[in-house]
């Protein structure tokens, strides 16, 4: 057995990779070798730790000291001082970005991590995602074993139902109920699909879960397969997510080798296998029926519903489509029970939610907090507030298709139902924070441009609507719009929300509608030829002199 006196975990998530973590890891290995420490110090890669804007990040165990914003040039000092002599290099230690910043922060002790509750991200940043043994050491595959040896499929469905888990992809549909539809349908073939086609701008949680803990998804899918009677699973993932795909395929191979995928799993007659399918990066393929079309090899366009995929999905067979984060919740629920899960979050929305924070916020990155936490706690607690002393203008929840909430909503609990009432959505967990230097109309124009580009063109309300919305909003930013244009925007939004074929067209007007409602004054100013923040270029003729 090899014995190491220290483990150095290098965060290998995509954000850290962009920051240059590979070079940091290589330099680490070089330096450790140079000083002859390679038999004492183990250097390994792990999944995302969360503070993505601070990358590359490393953690040194047994002390649990976290270093941030490392450059290859800093590594020598860490190896010579910390790893050789045991002196923590204070200069490079992770600092919390807050008014009274603490330093020498260990992984678990900072406020940033203190407010978090990690169920989905339980292993992210703690284990080596390429090692099935490390996953098993943290109770991995025990839930699958428990299901196959001690539980009837119906009992598994019941536990998930009782837990109150709701789909984490955006719509918040109860997962247990979804499973029960497919379980009840008679068929010689059923499928489980993991929706990893995470296309919402600003969302990268699924990517980092897959990179950091791929086995949790495999286990979740196998349990789902047992519960509904499916023996085949597909993971539909964005083609750009190279590292996620690599890690998944590696994990699937390891699971097959240990007989955790294949036939007679845990000595039962249950068989299950998983295939990875990569998409070509169309936003609409995140919609479950368009995703199914794409898996079948057709062009990614949504189908008419009903029938829903639970009854007729891939090749007309009953198919459960679950989001990555939903599946990552399954194993802990089976192991700890429904009542345990209900101990987190709110009554109607138990559990936690993974958010990706981006925009004008100090701690950009990946967090997991209990459902029902307020927006204020996220922005000013975990998020560390807004940089540059600027004020909070708005938060867009749920990604580009979500609504925009002004500061009056800062104390709103973050869960599916409350946000839906406010005209927004919890959605995929993207959280875009904007300070008051931005023009709301200009921001809306950017959102509308995105939908114009991503509409698949199958149904008219969406194809035509997204283009017209963009044109009209652009007109406002140019100072050429009138009150009639606002009325037209409102009418068009209503038509799209009620008649578009799928979620894309139905949700596209959300940011516009909420902004029209909550930032009426700012829109009014633009109609009068004036942009309060000075972002939009207005015609000179509108400038009032004197």
């Amino acid at each position: 057995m090899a014995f190491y006196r220290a483990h150095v975990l290098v965060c290998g998530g995509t954000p850290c990779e962009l920051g240059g973590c590979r070079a940091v890891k290589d330099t680490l290995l070089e330096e450790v070798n140079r000083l002859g420490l390679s038999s004492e110090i183990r250097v390994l890669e792990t999944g995302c730790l969360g503070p993505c804007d601070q990358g590359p990040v490393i953690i040194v165990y047994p002390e649990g000291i976290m270093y941030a914003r490392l450059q290859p040039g800093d590594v020598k000092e860490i190896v010579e001082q910390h790893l050789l002599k045991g002196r923590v290099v204070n200069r490079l230690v992770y600092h919390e970005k807050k008014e009274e910043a603490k330093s020498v922060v260990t992984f678990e002790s900072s406020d940033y991590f203190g407010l978090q509750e990690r169920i989905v991200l339980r292993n992210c940043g703690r284990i080596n995602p390429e090692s099935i043994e490390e996953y098993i050491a943290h109770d991995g595959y025990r839930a699958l074993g428990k299901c196959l040896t001690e539980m009837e499929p119906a009992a598994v469905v019941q536990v998930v139902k009782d837990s109150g888990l709701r789909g984490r992809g955006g719509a918040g549909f109860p997962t247990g109920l979804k499973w029960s539809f497919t379980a009840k349908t008679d068929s010689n073939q059923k499928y489980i699909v993991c929706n990893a086609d995470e296309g919402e701008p600003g969302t990268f949680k699924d990517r980092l879960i897959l990179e950091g803990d791929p086995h949790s998804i495999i286990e979740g899918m196998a349990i789902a397969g047992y519960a509904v009677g499916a023996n085949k699973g597909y993971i539909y993932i964005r083609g750009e997510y190279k590292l996620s795909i690599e890690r998944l395929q590696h994990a699937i191979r390891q699971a097959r080798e240990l007989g955790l995928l294949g036939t007679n799993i845990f000595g039962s007659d249950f068989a299950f296998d998983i295939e990875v399918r990569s998409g070509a990066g169309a936003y609409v393929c995140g919609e479950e029926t368009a995703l199914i079309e794409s898996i079948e090899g057709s062009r990614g366009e949504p189908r008419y519903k009903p029938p829903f995929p639970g009854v007729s999905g891939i090749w007309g067979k009953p198919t459960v489509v679950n989001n990555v984060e939903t599946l990552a919740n399954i194993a802990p629920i089976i192991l700890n029970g429904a009542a345990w899960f209900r101990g987190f979050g709110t009554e109607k929305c138990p559990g936690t939610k993974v958010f990706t924070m981006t925009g004008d916020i100090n701690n950009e990155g990946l967090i997991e907090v209990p459902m029902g936490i307020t927006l204020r706690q996220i922005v000013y607690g975990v998020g560390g507030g807004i940089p540059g002393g600027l004020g909070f203008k708005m938060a867009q929840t749920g990604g580009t298709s979500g609504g925009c909430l002004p500061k009056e909503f800062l104390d709103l609990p973050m869960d599916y139902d409350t946000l839906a009432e406010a005209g927004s959505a919890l959605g995929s967990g993207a959280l875009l924070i904007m300070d008051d230097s931005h023009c709301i109309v200009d921001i809306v124009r950017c959102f509308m441009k995105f939908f114009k580009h991503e509409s698949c063109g199958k149904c008219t309300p969406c194809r035509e609507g997204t283009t017209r919305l963009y044109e009209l909003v652009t007109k406002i930013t140019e100072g050429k719009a009138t009150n009639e244009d606002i009325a037209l925007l409102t009418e068009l939004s209503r038509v799209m929300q009620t008649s578009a074929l799928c979620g894309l067209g139905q949700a596209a007007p959300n940011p516009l509608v909420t902004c029209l409602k909550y930032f009426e004054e700012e829109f009014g100013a633009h109609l009068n030829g004036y942009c309060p923040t000075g972002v939009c270029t207005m015609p000179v003729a509108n400038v009032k002199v004197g």
Partner: protein
Amino acid sequence: MKSLEELARIREQAKQNLQLRESRDGIKIVVGMGTCGIAAGARETMNAILDELIKRNLSQVIVTQTGCVGLCEQEPIIDVTLPDQPKVTYGKVSPDKARQIIANHVVNGNIIGEWVIRSDKQ
């Protein structure tokens, strides 16, 4: 994978390798690694400690280093802390002494009094 027992076996084995990242309250050995310590041979002492731990399969022991504590004359210095016991500091620890400290103190709980230079009162 044929049974839960098989999974449990893999889990126990894998857990041992991860103990370093999990436990904060196990047996701890701290080696003085200031310039004075290194000059006095702390590297060799450290290597002997690690080698002895591997031989005895003591994966739960945490080994860290510290800087100069001021007693350069006594280097290499090591601290040994067993759970719920005061810290014991040994001085002039040669590789050979280090091996004996592990055998007597870490494994059997017998402090080697004549090499101790300081012991925390309980």
